[in-house]
């Protein structure tokens, strides 16, 4: 077993345990912190896969933005579900069964694909060339400029929508008094 394999097992185990804690932790704030650990583990896996730019983006976008956003939402809504009481619904065993069956099916399917045991060819180009190629591919009219622009439109639309949806309703004082 080589050093890279040991590193993979280490990071994979950390990611897996953190993901398990995300879905089982009774306290939501703790679940958010475990989510940060899981996202960091995925970033480490990206580095093992030699996608260093994506690892940086993972840290900046996921840990820096999305996880913080989730922690904000947890803080803003925490009075209602006081970290006590059941955190799972009545049919949690159905969910467990579904996910276990799905995992078993996926592993069985993977076991039948023959070409998965091979090791990759070493990268022919260095990271700078790779990053330049990614940047060019995203703005090249023959490659991914359309999905890229679509993603930017989607981001802007969702930002405007989020502001519109999260705005306090007009006359919220009467409504909250009425309840």
């Amino acid at each position, binding site marked *: 077993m*080589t050093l*890279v*394999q040991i590193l*993979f097992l280490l990071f*994979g185990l950390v990611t*897996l345990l953190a*993901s*398990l804690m*995300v*879905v089982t932790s009774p306290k*939501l704030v703790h*679940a958010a912190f475990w*989510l940060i650990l899981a*996202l960091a583990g995925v970033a480490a896996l990206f580095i*093992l*896969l*030699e*996608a260093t*730019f*994506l690892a940086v*983006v*993972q840290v900046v*976008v996921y840990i820096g*933005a*999305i996880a913080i*956003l*989730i922690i904000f*939402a*947890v803080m803003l*809504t925490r009075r*209602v579900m006081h970290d006590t009481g059941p*955190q799972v*619904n009545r049919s*949690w065993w159905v*969910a467990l069964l*579904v*996910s276990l069956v*799905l995992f078993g099916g*996926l*592993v069985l399917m*993977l076991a039948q694909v023959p070409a*998965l*045991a091979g*090791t*990759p*060819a070493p990268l*022919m180009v260095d990271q700078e060339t790779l990053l330049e190629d*990614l940047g060019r591919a995203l703005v090249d009219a023959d490659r*991914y400029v359309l999905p890229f622009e679509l*993603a*930017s439109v989607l*981001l802007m639309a*969702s930002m405007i*929508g*989020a*502001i519109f949806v*999260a705005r306090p309703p007009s006359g*919220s004082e009467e*409504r909250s008094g009425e*309840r």
Partner: protein
Amino acid sequence: MIPLSWYLILAAAIFCIGVYGVLARRNAVAILMSIELMLNAVNINLVAFWRYMSPGVISGQAFAVMVFAVAASEAAVGLALIISIYRRRFTVAAEEIDMLKW
């Protein structure tokens, strides 16, 4: 080196953990967290297939970037919806948000 199947099995495990979280958790914020886990599993698959199958073509990384953008917008809209529902109904439990159910 690491076989590709290790990455795929790890990603499948994380995805299934996310599926369990989405189906079983009561808190809407926890459901969103599980969705983020599932999107991350997909990203691992995309990058692993890029590295092992077609390292000369950058499309795997480009699609992973798209998944990042979609995940960011999904988190923003989802959390805005949760905060809006919390303001009006004082709950974030998924089974109590049933105005559209009949």
